[in-house]
C-alpha cells in the first residue's frame, strides 16, 4: 500500500464522518418537526483494489441516506389513528347531547313527563281549583318545553354532525391531491429513499387522511402509496379521485359521501376518522330522535284523545291539550294548545256536560294513561326510562371505544416513534462518534502528510 493511497483512504474517512455529522445535524434540526423521519447515513467499506497479489482497502464510502420508516408500523398507525379519531368524534358528539336528557343541573325529561300525571292526580282533590288546574297547564308546558329543547338539540346535533363531516371533505380532497402529486414526485426522484423529505410530507398527508376519513394505505413496490376509502381506490399512483357529498340517491334524505369514478360517482362509507365518527354519531342521534318523537307523539295523541272525552266546567267538550307539528320532529314541534294556556278552565276534567265543579270523572281516564301501554307496548314513563337508559348505554359504549382505540393509537404511535423518531441523546452519541472518526481520519492524513514530508526532505 502506498502512502498516497493512505491519504486517499483517510480522505474517505473524512467524507464518511462529515456525512454522518451532516445527517446528525439534519436529525437534530428536525427533531421537533412533525412527521420528520430519522435519517441514517448508510456507510460501507469501499471496494478494494488489487495490486499484484494483494487487495488494498480503499477506506469507507457513503452508500446513501436512508429514512427509518417501516411501512407496516406506519400502516398500523394510520389504521389505529382512523379508528381513534372516529371513536373520539362519536363520543364527543353524543356526550354533548346526553345532558339534555338528564344532568347534574336537574334537567330530567322523564321527570317532566311524570310531572303531567302528578299534576293530574293532584287535581283529583279539587277539580274546580284554579290553582290545581293552572298546575296541570304548567306541567303540560314544562313537558312541551323539555321535548322542544331535546328535539331541537338533537336536530341541531344531527345538522352539526353533517356539516362538520362535510367541512372535512375539502381537507380530504386536498390531501388526496397532495398524496397523488407526491407519489409522482417521489417516483421521479427514484423512490422514498432518494426523496426522504417528500416521503415525510406524503406520510403527513396520509396521517391527515387517516385522521379525517380513516383511509387505508398500501405502499406499493415502486414506493407509491395507494389510498383506499370504503374499499375504493381514492389515490392510485399519481391519480387522485374526488370525495363528494350528495343527497342519498336511495332517497333517505341524508347526505352521503361519494367518490368520483370514471362512470360518475359511487356512494362510499368512511372507514373511520373524524368523518366516520361524525356519521356514526349522526346515526345514533337520528335513532334517539326517532324514539323521542314516537314517545312524544304517542303521549300527546293519547292525552288529547282522553281529554276530548271530557267536559269543561262550562259544559264544552275537551279540546286538544297539545298540538303536534304537521311535519318534522314531533318533539321539537310540540306545543301546548294556546286556548289552554290562556284559560285553565278549558281543561276538561268532568265526565258530564252538567258543569258540576266537583266532577273530575275524566281525570281518571287521563291519569290512567300513565299505566297504559301506549308507546310501542310500553308505559310512557317506562318508554322514557328506556330511552334514557339507551342514551346512557350508547354514550358509555362510545366512551369505552374512544378509550380503547385511543390506547391502541398511542401504542401504534409509540411503536412508530421508537422506530422513526429522532432521539436527541442518540444523536449526541452519533455526533461524538462522527467527531472522533473525523478527528482520527484527519490525524491519519496529518501523519501521512508528515511522513511524506519527511520522505520528500530526504530527496
Amino acid at each position, binding site marked *: 500500500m502506498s502512502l498516497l493511497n493512505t491519504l486517499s483512504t483517510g480522505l474517505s474517512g473524512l467524507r464518511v464522518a462529515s456525512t454522518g455529522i451532516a445527517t446528525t445535524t439534519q436529525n437534530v434540526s428536525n427533531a421537533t418537526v412533525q412527521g420528520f423521519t430519522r435519517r441514517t447515513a448508510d456507510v460501507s467499506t469501499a471496494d478494494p483494489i488489487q495490486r499484484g497479489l494483494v487487495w488494498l482497502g480503499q477506506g469507507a464510502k457513503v452508500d446513501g441516506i436512508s429514512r427509518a420508516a417501516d411501512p407496516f408500523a406506519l400502516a398500523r398507525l394510520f389504521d389505529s389513528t382512523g379508528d381513534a379519531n372516529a371513536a373520539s368524534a362519536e363520543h364527543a358528539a353524543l356526550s354533548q347531547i346526553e345532558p339534555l336528557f338528564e344532568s347534574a343541573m336537574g334537567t330530567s325529561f*322523564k321527570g317532566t313527563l*311524570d310531572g303531567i300525571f302528578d299534576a293530574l292526580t293532584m287535581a*283529583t282533590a279539587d277539580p274546580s281549583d284554579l290553582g290545581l288546574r293552572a298546575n296541570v297547564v304548567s306541567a303540560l308546558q314544562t313537558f312541551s318545553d323539555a321535548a322542544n329543547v331535546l328535539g331541537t338539540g338533537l336536530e341541531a346535533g344531527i345538522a352539526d354532525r353533517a356539516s362538520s363531516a362535510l367541512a372535512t371533505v375539502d381537507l380530504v380532497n386536498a390531501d388526496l391531491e397532495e398524496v397523488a402529486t407526491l407519489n409522482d414526485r417521489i417516483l421521479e426522484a427514484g423512490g422514498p429513499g432518494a426523496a426522504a423529505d417528500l416521503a415525510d410530507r406524503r406520510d403527513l398527508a396520509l396521517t391527515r387522511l387517516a385522521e379525517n376519513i380513516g383511509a387505508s394505505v398500501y405502499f406499493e413496490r415502486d414506493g407509491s402509496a395507494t389510498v383506499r376509502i370504503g374499499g375504493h381506490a381514492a389515490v392510485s399512483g399519481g391519480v387522485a379521485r374526488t370525495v363528494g357529498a350528495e343527497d342519498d340517491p336511495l332517497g333517505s334524505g341524508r347526505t352521503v359521501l361519494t367518490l368520483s369514478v370514471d362512470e360518475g360517482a359511487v356512494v362510499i362509507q368512511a372507514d373511520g376518522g373524524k368523518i366516520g365518527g361524525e356519521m356514526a354519531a349522526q346515526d345514533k342521534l337520528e335513532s334517539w330522535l326517532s324514539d323521542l318523537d314516537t314517545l312524544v307523539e304517542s303521549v300527546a295523541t293519547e292525552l288529547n284523545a282522553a281529554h276530548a272525552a271530557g267536559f269543561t266546567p262550562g259544559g264544552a267538550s275537551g279540546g286538544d291539550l297539545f298540538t303536534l307539528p304537521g311535519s318534522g320532529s314531533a318533539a321539537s314541534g310540540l306545543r301546548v294548545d294556546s286556548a289552554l294556556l290562556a284559560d285553565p278552565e278549558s281543561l276538561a276534567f268532568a265526565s258530564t256536560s252538567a258543569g258540576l265543579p266537583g266532577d273530575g270523572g275524566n281525570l281518571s281516564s287521563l291519569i290512567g294513561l300513565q299505566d297504559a301501554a301506549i308507546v310501542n307496548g310500553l308505559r310512557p314513563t317506562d318508554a322514557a326510562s328506556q330511552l334514557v337508559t339507551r342514551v346512557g348505554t350508547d354514550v358509555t359504549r362510545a366512551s369505552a371505544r374512544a378509550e380503547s382505540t385511543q390506547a391502541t393509537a*398511542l401504542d401504534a404511535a409509540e411503536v412508530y416513534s421508537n422506530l422513526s423518531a429522532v432521539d436527541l441523546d442518540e444523536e449526541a452519541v452519533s455526533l461524538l462518534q462522527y467527531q472522533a472518526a473525523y478527528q482520527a481520519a484527519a490525524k491519519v492524513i496529518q501523519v501521512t502528510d508528515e511522513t511524506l514530508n519527511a520522505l520528500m526532505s530526504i530527496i
Partner: protein
Amino acid sequence: MRIVNNNPVVGSRRSTAQLQSIAAQLVPARERAITGIATNRPSDAPGRWGAIYGLREEHENQAVYQHNIGRATDVLSVADDVLGSASNVLQQAWERGIQLSSESWNTETRTAAASEIRELREELVGLANTRLGDRSLFAGDAWGQAAFDDAGNYLGSTATQSAQIGKGNDVLVAIDGSEVFQGGVDVFSALSDLEAALTADDPAAVRDLLPTLEDAFQQVVKGRQEVGYRQARVDDTTVVSEGLASMLEDRLYTATAADPAQAYTELANLTTTYEAALQVTAQSSGAKLFDLLR
C-alpha cells in the same frame, strides 16, 4: 429494541396523552365530590336508571298523595265538626221534644219552644250549607251552589268526587248531603213537624215524633261516623305514605349518592396524580446528553 427517550415531540405527545387521561377522570370525580351524586348523567350508570326512575316516580307520587291527603283532611275535618254540631242541634231538639211531650207544660211554653225549634232547624240548614272556601261541603260534586234551600230541598248532586291518596286508594272528598240529612229520615221535615206539633200545643203529636227525631239524630251521627271512618283511613294512609316517602328517599339516596369518603379520596388521588404528572412532564425536559457535551 430502540426506545426514543429524548424527543420533544414524542415526549410531549406521551405527556399530553397521560395528562388528558387523568383530566378525563378528574371531571366526573370532581362532579361526584361536589354534587354528592354518583349518577349525574345517563352514562354514569346506564343500567341503574330504570331503578332510579322507578324510585323517583314513586317518591314524587307520595308527595302528590300527601297533597291530596291534606286537601281531603281539610274537607273531612270540617265535615266532622259540622256533623258534630248538627247532631248537637238534633239532640237539643229531641231533648226539648221529650221535655215538652209531658202534659204538665202549658201552651205558652210550647209556643216559645216551637220558636226555639224553628231556630234550631234554621241552624241545621245553615250547617248543611257549610262552605269550605268556595265549596259547599254537602252538595256532592255540585259544590258551587248551596246544598239545601231554606225549605230543606236538596239542591246538590248525588255524585261524589274521589281524591287519589295512594296507588289504587281513593277517598271521597265530596259529600252527598241528601244521604246525610235526608237518607232515611228528612231531618229538616222532622224539625218542621216538631215545630208544628208544639205550635198546635199537641203533646201527643210531640210524643209520636220522638222516635223520628231519634232516628234523625242517629242518621246524622251515622253520617259523622262515615266521615270519621274516611278520616281515619286518610290518617292511616298519611302514616303509610310518610313512611314510604322516607323509605323511598333513603333508597333513592342509596341508588344515586356518591360515597363521600370514596368520592373525596378518588378526587384527592387523581389531583395528586395530575400534579405529579405535571411535575414529571416539566422535569422530563431537563438535563440531556447535549447539555453535558463540552
